[in-house]
């Protein structure tokens, strides 16, 4: 019964890995040499560039981090919850999927980058999986109360 929960946990962690990977790739594709100027004052770093394409890459990487940091944390917690604690984390995972979908659909708007599509597709699959009967049966399983468990027998009038 818990295999399904573990599988779900693994899929959520995979999603985390993929999103962190995309984030790393986005940050790595920023030309930091042209953007970072060390200031004269000790302990201070100034970011500055006149190159529009570099600025665009930088903005994209920062926005990605802003939009997806919280969902990634939630996904990680949910994934670990499913893998280690077996049944915990359904709500966290659902909220995270909603946040990722909202970010992909609304904040990226018309300039939707290529990675938004696989993220949307993965989210759809995860939403269907999280709401499937078998998964819900595992995560919402509860003990029968004594009244429910005991068959009702009436004797005589």
């Amino acid at each position, binding site marked *: 019964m818990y295999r399904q929960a573990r599988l779900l946990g693994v899929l959520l962690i995979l999603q985390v890995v993929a999103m962190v990977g995309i984030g790393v790739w986005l940050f790595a594709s920023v030309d930091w040499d042209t953007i970072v100027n060390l200031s004269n004052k000790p302990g201070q770093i100034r970011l500055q560039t006149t190159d529009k394409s570099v600025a665009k890459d930088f903005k994209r990487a920062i926005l990605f981090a802003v939009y997806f940091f919280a969902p990634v944390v939630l996904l990680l917690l949910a994934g670990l919850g499913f893998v280690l604690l077996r049944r915990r984390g359904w*709500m966290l995972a*659902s*909220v995270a*999927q*909603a946040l990722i*979908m*909202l970010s*992909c*659909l*609304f904040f990226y708007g018309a300039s*939707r980058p290529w990675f938004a*599509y696989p993220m*949307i*597709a993965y*989210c*759809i699959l995860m*939403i*269907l999986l*999280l*709401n*499937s*009967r*078998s*998964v*819900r*049966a595992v995560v919402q399983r509860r003990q029968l109360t004594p009244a429910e468990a005991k*068959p*009702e*027998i*009436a*004797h*005589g*009038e």
Partner: protein
Amino acid sequence: MANEESVDARTAEALLRRFEPVIRFTKGEWFYPMDCEPYVDACSLWVRRPGEDALCVVPAGELTLERLAQQPEDTTGAVHYLKIPNPKEDENQGRRARRRARRSHTNPDWPRETFRAGRGRLARVGYISRLADALFSLVLLARGRVPGGDVEGGRVLYGRFMEKEEHFRYHGHVVRQDGWIVLRYWLFYAFNDWRSNVFGANDHEADWEKIFVFLSESESGEVRPEWVAYAAHEETGDDLRRRWDDPELEKIGEHPVAYVCAGSHATRYSRGEYLTELAFPLPRAFAVVRRVVRRFWYVTLRQYADEDYREKPYEQFTIPFVDYGRGDGLSVGPGQDMEWDPPRLMNPLPSWVSRYRGLWGLYTQDPFKGEDAPAGPMYNRDKTISREWFDPVGWAGLDKVPTRTEQLGVITGRQAEIEERRDLLRSELLEKSSRLKALGMDAEATRDQSHLSKLHENQMRHIDELSKEVETLRAQLSDDEVLAESLKDHAERLKDGERPPARAHIVHPARPVSEAETHAGRVAQLWASISIAVVLVTLILIIAYERQQLLSALVFAIAMFAFIEAGFRRRLTRFIVSVNVALAIVGALVILEHYFWGVIILAVLAVGLYILWENLRELGR
């Protein structure tokens, strides 16, 4: 009605009085069960033919029960209906009746003793109900009538009846059907003021409600009560009835206790406040689409759904309202605040029951029928005979239940039937088994002989067919053996006085709302009261000031309201699932739009591969 048999008037009255119910009303109820005769005497009779204005057939003051029964059949689509007099037409009598009503001990504090919905009414139902509630109020305004204006005539009329002769009366009818003696208590109310007085779904002139008691008769002729069925809205079947020994069924001596809901007069077994779902039919096309989508969602995609949602029928949508059956008002019945007056007997069947097929109050031509008055005890609004009349046993789902007197006889008969069938099966099985063995020997003898290969193939085919028949017969025999054993055990338990669970037949019991739900928090109640207005104002503000970001602002606002609502109603999980599903649908559309041709090519490829796979599998066989 071939299986029905009427009962003579004396026996009927004695039985009716012996088991007559105790009815507990909710404080603030305006109308109590009364004799239908003074009501008819005060009404006028009208007919509305298709495409014509309503025509008065008999004016008020000239109508009687006898005259009501004399209405001839009319053209197709014509509707006969009664109409209560307008209080303005009879102002002096109206005032007197109101004064009398103030003094009446049925309502000693009138009009101070008005119905109080309680603080949590709106907090208990969802947005749609609150919206429907607001729309009902708006409809009333559009009709140029103050809320409750419709009911005024009914109140005045009822006050007048009570002034003339205060009474509490039911209409009783007793029939025998399928071994049962059915006591039918028909309760007539001058008005259903559920909407005007109790914030419910509808109002209508006249209201016929019913309570049935099912008796069995021993061989010595002694009767004993076994089941009761209380009518609530349009409900029928197993969920309606309770066994006499069911702890939910309150009794005072031999009198079952019923709790009548304020305004709607729906009858309940337990005191409390009920969420009642009123069903409205969906247009056929919507119903088909809904069925296809839900099938895809729940069956194909194996998605989860709450039990109550999964079992909702496709052809209708439902709006929940609250039914108040508090039982804290007047109590009518033996030994109660008010005693029943002698009943109006319907044995032998009076002609006003059988001959008048029209409505017992105003015909509003309401497309949902909720505001139209009901027909009499025998008929539906469309003039067909109602099931509770021609098949009371089936109406309560008792057609599959033998009486306690019959139980052992039914089991014995069934055992004999099964034994006879088992004998037949055994002899058939013996004969076929012998044939199968013979065929087996034949097939063994003809195996591996090339000149007999055709014959061998035929033999093998016959063996296969016969083997399946033998298998089926053995399965039937085995089932019958198990069934016979179970019947024997069941008969033993019955002889020992043991009875099956009293509530096993109830699938969807109507349960009062819990105390916790009834007493919603103050903030939740405040939110429930203002939410519809706040939503409307917000939507207008967004349309007025945020046209640039209209879609986003609307989506955000609706999501926020839904979130708050879900929080108050403790349905956050359902809310998250709904949001996710909506987002998944939008996401799927976005992907489809972006990769349209890719998706089409993939789909065609998938179909092609599937066909190829199927063909290759066939080749391989």
